């Protein structure tokens, strides 16, 4: 059994379908582009390194040793030790001896 479809209906259907497809495609491209832009922007934001405010002590009247390499090296090393001092755990609570039930005994009830 053959179904006859008129040429007009076929053209109308194809054009509606085609237009919808193109519209969806355009929306997808625009949305995708925006998304990429947002992603890139987010990545850029992530990439921006927040400057850590290092304790830079402004010395208004520097001595001849203000930029001495040995002094700068010692200063840097002391800062490292200071950081280590702050981070040192002198409790190690998780390493306390385990609490165990050492009273293993049996009393038979009468």
């Amino acid at each position, binding site marked *: 059994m053959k179904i006859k479809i008129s040429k007009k209906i076929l053209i109308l259907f194809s054009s509606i379908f085609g237009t919808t497809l193109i519209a969806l495609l355009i929306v997808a491209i625009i949305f995708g582009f925006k998304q990429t832009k947002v992603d890139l922007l987010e990545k850029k934001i992530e990439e921006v390194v927040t400057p850590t405010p290092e304790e830079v002590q402004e010395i208004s009247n520097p*001595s001849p*040793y203000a930029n*001495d390499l040995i002094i700068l090296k010692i200063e840097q090393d002391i800062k490292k030790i200071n950081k280590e001092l702050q981070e*040192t755990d*002198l409790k190690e609570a998780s390493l306390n*001896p385990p609490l165990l039930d050492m009273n293993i005994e049996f009393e038979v009830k009468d």
Partner: protein
Amino acid sequence: MKKLLIFFITILFFFISSSAYAQEFNFKKAYEDYLFNFNKYRESHGEYVTAKEAYSSYKTLTSKNTAKEKTAKLLLNEDEVIRTYLTAIRLKLSETTGISNYEQNVIYLKLDKEVTLYLTHQDSVNVAGDLEDLVKLAQENKENYKATETLSYQTLGSIFASKEINLRNKLNGQITLLKDKLGEIRQKGNKQTAKAERWLLEAENRLLKSQEKEFEAQQILSQIKTTDRYKNKDYNEAQYLFEQSHQYLKEASSQLQEVIREIKTAD
């Protein structure tokens, strides 16, 4: 040719696997092992309590057998918890660098001896004939654990002391460098050094005080007896002294920063 290839592949395999094992077994792994065994111990303790209740109430042969089985399981897990705990603190100590090799080795020997004790105890549990034997073995562990606790606290003390000594050595190194530099500046005569030297002296004093507190803490820990009931009280006291020692190190570090600031500032 083919045999040679197989030989090389085998050698390579053993080399990779042994080096991978050596790399992997560190404090972190040992601590995970300990936590895993502690969980197993807790589970078996629950089972033991239930079996004990059942046996106390019903007094049947079946309940006695179950009680025996659960007690043996508990004791084996208990030994394993202690063994893995001792291994974990041994590895923690090995990761610190402050105390001398000799002192470290003495503690290792003691810890290894304890580990062997619990391994032997596990063997005894495995061959125990009845529930009464297991109860006796449990009593044995109770006594053993008193000594283990003492050794554990002393090992933890050595870990803290090691950390403190390491940091103090580092600060001492910087003091020596600063002293040399101040000597050089004094000779050149283009900058006053008296103030910086005073700060340096203060820092040295703080290091001395830190050392004193650390010795006090070690003293307390070394005096803990196996028979002491409240070992953790002494341990807490020692820990407090370690913290005080650490505070002095922090102060010394601040004073060294002052020395630097003083050197960098014109008169």
